[in-house]
């Protein structure tokens, strides 16, 4: 029987990438001194499962590489080695390297052998270094049995549980593996074997007393038993502890015991040059908590009950039962909405998926720039739509990088300015209204409005005489013209690629705001819709067509009065609403709708919308109703239409287009 292992590859890679993330986070925590044993254990466990998995699937290079990491981590775990800052750096690099190998393997690319080799050697160097012996030697003699120091041999008592074989374990395999480590002698204890009548061949009745002599580390023996430790009683004791000047001998032995690893890795490295078979097209998948699934199943159950109730009612319906029908329909409505909400919940993932990359980035960048920066994150469990999470990553990276590079000053400048030497960058995610807000706060030097304003004039983006609000000045930063100019980064900071940041956020239906106090810091605040798939809409009619205006952008709707209409320069229409002059956007003109009913302003309605901080009046024939609509893409089968962000299907099965207010405003300019 052969099992197609390919089908598990996807799962393995997904889990391994998660494991790598765990290792990275753990290592970063170790670095900042928050480590406890649990932290090291979780790093170790992650490495261990990657090693196990890759071995099973035959990714020898990954397995070998992880093995050496694991060995090092094991020593740290057992307290015979302390991780220095350097050591963590190397381990972090190794995590990157593993990630690279894994990506290459899963996507069929090439592994950067040089990189693997460098990291491998770096790890090997730590392991070979003598630091292992001198730091915690005090602990060592007390608990030699626990240490990795290899005595002349080990006494192993191996007593598998009765159900040992039912888990697919085979003691022979284990004995053989032990035998491969050194010279193995032993005795089998057959005393528990029952009489032939009671004998069940699927039960385990044997236990072993083993003597393993040779230069074997305890961790090597632990490895052999790693998969069966839950199904058997194992005790491993050193045969006879030879107390010697551990400093020299253990270092010696260390090199000796590590040798096989190094040699094993060499052929493996060669192997990777063979091009791996192209993996099947990567489909993105999502991990869903079992509670969410259970909720869904409950909901569907309710829905089915309501449905059967309604169909029963429909079998012999008369007007006396109208009330019951209405009741049932209300129930149906409620269940459908709940179901919709829970289905949407499935797509929600915590923002920590995006945030988790920042500790590493801040650490690396601040080290490079010789700045002293602390990253604080709040609200990592705030949930966002998976698509939004995927797309918000790059803009966030950009903003954080900007804050590190241009926001936070050099330590000496900070001290001179009377601020703590250590700069702080804060990432904060939270709900506000129907939106998710992500704030990136730094306590750096802030943005100098005057300089930006001057630059704006130089670039011809603003009139020298014009008066701009703070927000308008900051918005200049997001102009493409600003970003390409390299010199702006010397003066004020912020610049490169900020237009892309803004564009990305806008494409998600969000907005970005900037607040800054010179000398005190800057806050970038990103507002994003909870989900991309559903929006609350107001349907409006223009001629025979129905359009949906997203409710979030609507401020109010008014029945216009003629006397409030003004013409600007003979063509632009504005409407005076209270003290504000609103430019008017006529949908029928922009979309060239021939049969629009309202021509004169007082015949239709004005929907006041807000986008990009500006207000406009959208002129339509009539308002219909408010409803939640599911957004469908026009692009998947057709193309992008200016002024339209998508389409939706109405209750009667017809299609309605969803207006894209910011783009409408640009069209009318």
């Amino acid at each position, binding site marked *: 029987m052969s099992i197609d292992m390919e089908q598990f590859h996807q799962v393995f890679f997904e889990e391994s990438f998660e494991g790598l993330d765990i290792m990275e986070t753990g290592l970063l925590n170790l670095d900042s001194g928050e480590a406890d044993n649990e932290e090291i254990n979780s790093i170790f466990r992650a490495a261990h499962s990657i090693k196990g998995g890759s071995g099973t699937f035959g990714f020898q290079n990954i397995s070998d590489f992880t093995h050496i990491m694991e060995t090092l981590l094991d020593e740290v775990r057992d307290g015979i080695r302390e991780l220095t800052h350097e050591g963590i750096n190397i381990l972090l690099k190794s995590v990157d390297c593993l990630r690279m190998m894994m990506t290459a393997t899963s996507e069929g690319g090439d592994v950067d052998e040089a990189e693997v080799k460098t990291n491998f050697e770096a790890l090997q160097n730590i392991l070979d270094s003598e630091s292992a012996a001198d730091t915690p030697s005090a602990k060592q003699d007390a608990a030699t049995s626990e240490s990795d120091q290899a005595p002349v041999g080990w006494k192993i008592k191996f007593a598998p549980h009765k159900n040992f074989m039912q888990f697919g374990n085979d003691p022979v395999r284990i004995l053989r593996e032990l035998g491969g480590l050194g010279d193995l002698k032993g005795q089998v204890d057959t005393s528990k074997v029952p009489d032939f009548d009671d004998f069940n061949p699927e039960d385990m009745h044997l236990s072993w007393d083993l003597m393993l002599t040779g230069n074997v580390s305890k961790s090597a023996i632990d490895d052999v038993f790693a998969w069966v430790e839950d199904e058997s009683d194992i005790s491993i004791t050193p045969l006879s502890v030879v107390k010697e000047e551990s400093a020299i001998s253990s270092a010696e032995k260390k090199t000796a015991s590590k040798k096989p690893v190094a040699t094993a890795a060499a052929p493996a490295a060669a192997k990777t040059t063979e091009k791996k078979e192209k993996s099947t097209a990567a489909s993105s998948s999502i991990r869903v908590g079992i509670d969410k699934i259970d909720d869904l199943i409950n909901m569907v159950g309710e829905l089915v009950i309501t449905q059967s109730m309604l169909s029963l009612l429909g079998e012999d319906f008369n007007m006396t039962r109208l009330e019951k029908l209405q009741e049932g329909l209300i129930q149906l409505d409620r269940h459908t909405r709940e179901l919709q909400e829970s289905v949407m919940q499935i797509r929600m993932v915590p923002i920590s998926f995006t945030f988790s990359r920042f500790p590493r980035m801040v650490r690396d960048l601040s080290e490079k720039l010789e700045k002293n920066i602390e990253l604080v994150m709040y609200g990592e469990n705030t949930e966002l739509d998976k698509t939004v999470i995927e797309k918000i990553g790059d803009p966030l990276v950009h903003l954080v990088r900007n804050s590190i590079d241009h926001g936070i000053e050099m330590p000496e400048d900070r001290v001179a300015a009377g601020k703590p030497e250590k700069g702080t960058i804060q990432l904060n995610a939270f709900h506000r209204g129907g939106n998710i807000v992500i704030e990136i706060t730094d306590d750096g030097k802030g943005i100098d409005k005057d300089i930006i304003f001057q630059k704006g004039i130089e670039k011809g983006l603003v009139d020298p005489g014009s008066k701009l609000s703070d927000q308008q000045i900051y918005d200049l930063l997001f102009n493409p013209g600003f970003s390409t100019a390299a010199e702006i980064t010397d003066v004020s900071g912020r610049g490169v690629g900020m237009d892309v940041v803004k564009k990305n956020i806008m494409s998600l239906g969000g907005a970005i705001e900037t607040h800054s106090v010179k000398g005190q810091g800057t806050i970038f605040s990103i507002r994003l819709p909870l989900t991309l798939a559903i929006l609350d809409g107001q349907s409006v009619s223009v001629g*025979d*067509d*129905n359009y949906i205006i997203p409710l979030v952008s609507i401020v109010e709707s008014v029945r216009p009065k003629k006397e409030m209409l003004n013409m600007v320069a003979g063509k632009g229409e504005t409407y005076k609403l209270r003290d504000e002059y609103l430019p008017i956007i006529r949908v029928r003109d*922009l*979309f*060239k*709708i021939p049969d629009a009913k309202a021509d004169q302003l007082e015949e239709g309605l004005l929907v006041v919308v807000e986008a990009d901080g500006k207000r406009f009046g959208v002129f339509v024939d009539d308002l219909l109703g408010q409803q939640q609509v599911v957004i*469908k*893409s*026009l692009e*998947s*089968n*057709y*193309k992008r*239409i*200016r*002024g*339209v962000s998508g*389409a939706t*299907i109405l209750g009667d*099965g*017809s*299609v*309605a*287009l969803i207006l894209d207010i910011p783009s409408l405003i640009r069209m009318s300019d």
Partner: protein
Amino acid sequence: MTAETHTEGTDELLDVDADLGDEYLTFSLAHEEYGVDILRVREIRGWEAVTRVPNSPDYVKGVLNLRGAIVPVIDLRVRFNLPVEEYTSLTVVIVLAVEDKDDGREKTISVVVDEISDVVKAKLSDIQTTPKFGSALDTEYISGIADAGGKMLMLLDIDTMLRVSEMNQH
């Protein structure tokens, strides 16, 4: 497994024996007969009102809801510069799968035609290459001309004809 060998077999046969042809769904447009590869046809439905899409070329009548997907509707009469007529009860919409040549993705579109005629099997030997009509007529989207029971049948290359990038030019 069997299906695989089968298709491989036909491919080889096509090369050797030109008598095995493809099947075409034929329809009429202003008394002319056209055909599309029947394997591209997803569904045939009666004409019903569609939702207009602003700022689109004139031959795009709008979009319709095909079981939750938004599918553009193209009037082939307008596309081919044929005289426009009122839609009748016979007017049908053919839903087709096309490959977008720009990004290689499969898209679903639909075309409005006068009426469905038949399904014919055109032998490869019967299909002639499109004659050149000079610059007056755009024959780029006609992949060949076949004879179907004494009537001329124009076989459409729908991938070229309905190229989405072309819709973008307008």
